[in-house]
């Protein structure tokens, strides 16, 4: 199973878990599995068109999936998937 790194701002939706093992053959399958397990993640990871929103970056190992095969990027047993949202800092 692939390892998914959950970023700090989204951990409140994964019971404060930072690292999850998720099965799936590609990024799309992993994300649906993930949002199936943690429904509150869905509005952060999938937009109205069913795509990953542009303020979220998903990296498979060291590369941005936009430079691979997008959501169809193949995921292997030891792949590390990092979800990296835009963060801006302090102003409330």
């Amino acid at each position, binding site marked *: 199973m692939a390892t998914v790194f959950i970023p700090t701002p989204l951990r409140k939706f994964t019971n404060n878990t930072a690292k999850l093992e998720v099965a799936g053959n590609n990024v799309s399958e992993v994300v649906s599995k993930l949002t199936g397990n943690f429904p509150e993640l869905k509005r952060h990871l999938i937009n109205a068109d069913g795509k990953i929103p542009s303020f979220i970056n998903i990296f498979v190992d060291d590369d941005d999936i936009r430079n691979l095969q997008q959501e169809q990027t193949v995921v292997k047993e030891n792949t590390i998937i990092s979800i*990296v949202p835009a963060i801006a800092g302090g102003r*409330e």
Partner: protein
Amino acid sequence: MDHRDIKFSRDEMSRYNRHIIIPEFGLEAQQKLKASKVLVIGSGGLGSPVLLYLAAAGIGTIGIVDFDVVDDSNLQRQVLFGVGEVGQPKVEAAKRRLESLNPHINLKVYNTQLTSKNALDLIKEYDVVADGTDNFPTRYLVNDACVLLGKTNVYASIFQFEGQVSVFNYINGKGEVGPNYRDLYATPPPAGLVPSCAEGGVLGVLPGIIGSLQALEVIKVVTGVGEVLSGRFFSFDALNFESRTFNIRRNPNNPLNGNNPTIKELIDYEQFCGVKAVEKKIKEINSLELNEWQQRGEDFQIIDVREPYEYEICNIGAELIPLATVVENAGRIDRKRKVVVQCKTGNRSGKAIRELEERFGFDNLYNLKGGILGYIDDINPKLTKY
């Protein structure tokens, strides 16, 4: 001025000795530092270490942009400032601290907010920008201004335990331009989706770590020493001590400098980030009016949407329903009487009211303007501020 014409006094030579004796660095890199002009935008958590290290390293001219004043709640991470500076403009306090650290550099301060009107004029005077700001509109503003002017933008950002660093719009020796913030994040998250540090908090040492990395990259960009973090994106999670460096690329659809650029001048960034657009008007009450209601015994309910630990620090006797649980607790909120909703500054309570109005059709909710902090200032200074 050509950096090779830069001279150092005897004092400077002894001050910079530990740089000059590094074989890969040498006198020439030190000359480049002195010849350079760096603009640091934001002198807060990230700006503090950036400014301290750049001043100590001998950057010839440092500009500082900030419109804020030093607050007690800054001192947990903004190591440029001390108790004596609380209430003073940050740029003035920073200038004094940095002058005492290194009298051989020029400091220029701009006690103003960076806006679409002044950004190009301010940035064009400098070689490199270090962005340590705290909100999405300014992030895009700094990015766009740097791309339009052809300046390198050394970027860093933090939230709670997590930090990010990259070097945007870097032009390498072959004249190739590296990715910028819009290649990484084409659009900002909708307002309210990502909590800010004022709401979510930040571990004080994190901006120290991330800001130091940002200062490192500024020094590398200026001197040409080492391999600049361009086309790469560094992410650090202090909680797990996990760090990763990702590869990033330019996006041909980037509206600033992709194949068909559509942004040719600075835009309205508050609007772009949805800060203005999505805010539906809600009813408000200020702390003086709330006090009047209390004094004359008006029948109303007060709801506090902060977290329990915040409530423990100070409260005004409200019913506690943290923002994340407001929807499931909507039944506890009165429909017949007036209801005042409050948080720390008025932002979260505004979100709660919008959500309750939208989902359940409440029409009796009043947002406490300025939150409990405003109430403490105006009505009850005995309560603890945080």
